[in-house]
């Protein structure tokens, strides 16, 4: 074995899956490599500490008493009468019924306002019910029914004006979703780096965690090419973190590319193209 393989052997040691032959090759390697010998020692120390940590700990008696009391109180809570929820549902139903039985079908802006208000009232009722502790499932269903009722009432108003209101709402929603998408730094230079890896899915999972750790955004797109599993990883990082991020990712590359292929020159927007071996 070599130094780059040591970590997986150390993991296997912690998992108790290392064979005798593998342990022997680890010891042989570490006799000739001081850095790996230190890692092996630290691993054994960690194993010893973990072995002494029991999976159970006695709960102090006052804490036991507290959670049992809390559960007893919860069990006694009046699911039968929940005035806030009843009030919220009633308000939503009144609004829904009012919209259904309006003397004149409102048009234009009035229709938009009505549909928005109806939706908001029902949403508020549902939101109220969800902020209450221990609302049983049936109360959620009743609040959902009120929302559906309100939706139906809004739709019964002049359909032409409703379509316009819906389109406007969808545009707002789309813009909000777009704002939440990972930023691909449109217009900023994107550094593209190709990597050959042994397991595309595993490396993608690693990259996702690593990006989070380095305060970056990541968007992953899987695809096949000539029968090989591939992935495009779009990553945006703070400038200070990009070099370390790439240094960590470089260890998975089996393409033989030189180390400086993973150097960044101020770029914070990266495209890693992974291809399985």
């Amino acid at each position, binding site marked *: 074995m070599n130094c780059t393989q040591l970590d997986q052997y150390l*993991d296997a040691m912690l998992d108790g899956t290392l064979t005798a032959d593998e342990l022997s090759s680890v010891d042989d390697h570490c006799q000739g490599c001081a850095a790996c010998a230190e890692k092996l020692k630290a691993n054994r120390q960690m194993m010893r500490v973990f072995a002494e940590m029991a999976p*159970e700990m006695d709960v102090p008696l006052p804490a036991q008493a507290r959670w049992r009391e809390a559960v007893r109180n919860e069990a006694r809570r009046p699911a039968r009468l929940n005035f806030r929820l009843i009030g919220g549902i009633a308000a939503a139903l009144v609004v829904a019924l009012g919209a259904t039985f309006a003397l004149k079908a409102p048009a234009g802006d009035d229709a938009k306002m009505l549909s928005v208000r109806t939706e908001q009232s029902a949403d508020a009722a549902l939101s109220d019910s969800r902020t209450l502790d221990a609302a049983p499932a049936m109360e959620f269903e009743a609040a959902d029914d009120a929302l559906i009722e309100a939706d139906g009432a809004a739709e019964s108003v002049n359909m032409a004006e409703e379509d316009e209101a819906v389109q406007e709402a969808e545009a707002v929603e789309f813009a909000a979703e777009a704002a939440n998408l990972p930023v691909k730094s449109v217009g900023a230079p994107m550094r593209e780096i190709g990597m050959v890896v042994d397991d595309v899915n595993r490396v993608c999972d690693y990259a996702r965690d690593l990006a989070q750790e380095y305060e970056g955004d990541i968007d992953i797109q899987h695809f096949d090419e000539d029968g090989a599993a591939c992935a495009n990883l779009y990553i945006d990082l703070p400038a200070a973190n990009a070099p370390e991020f790439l240094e960590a990712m470089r260890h998975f590359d089996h393409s033989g590319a030189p180390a400086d292929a993973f150097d960044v020159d101020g770029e914070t927007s990266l495209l890693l193209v992974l291809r399985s071996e």
Partner: protein
Amino acid sequence: MDERQLIERAIRGDARAFNDLMSAQEKRMYAVAMRMFGNREDAEDCLQDAMLRIFRSISGFKFQSSFSTWVYRVTMNTCLDELRKRKNRPNTSLDGLLDAGWMPADAQDTPEQHALRAEVRGSVYGFIRELPEDMRAAVVLRDIQGLSYEDIAQALDTNVGTVKSRISRGREKLREKIMAKSELFDRYGV
């Protein structure tokens, strides 16, 4: 009454059955909370919150996983929700970490050896608490609670590959921290 019967009674709102059922789970839940927070006060609060969450949502348990795996999942979610709310900074109080590392003295230990063990364990708990939350959760469930990779994936609502990746990186970071404090750990021995 076996576990399944207790669960079914608890689902029907039987608080006494629930208490009996959870008495068998509380020690593991508390251990997880202690290792995630590192101090008794937060761990006890988390235990209570998790118990209430389980009581409120037990009707949603469909016997598709083991009950203990589901309990781990709710407990860990409770811990992670609280940590994320606080944008947790590692609590460097040694007292709190010693709380987490405390265990009864081994009859063969001298007082100095017992103190050394507690200091070493407290240090490792501190290192664990410095891990990013998702990595910390995976390492605690694997290396201390002893769950399988598959059970951890269920508890953390992710896949086995992601669990293995988080654990591997978490262990790598712990090794680096132990090496940086080699003087203490060399006294502890291997």
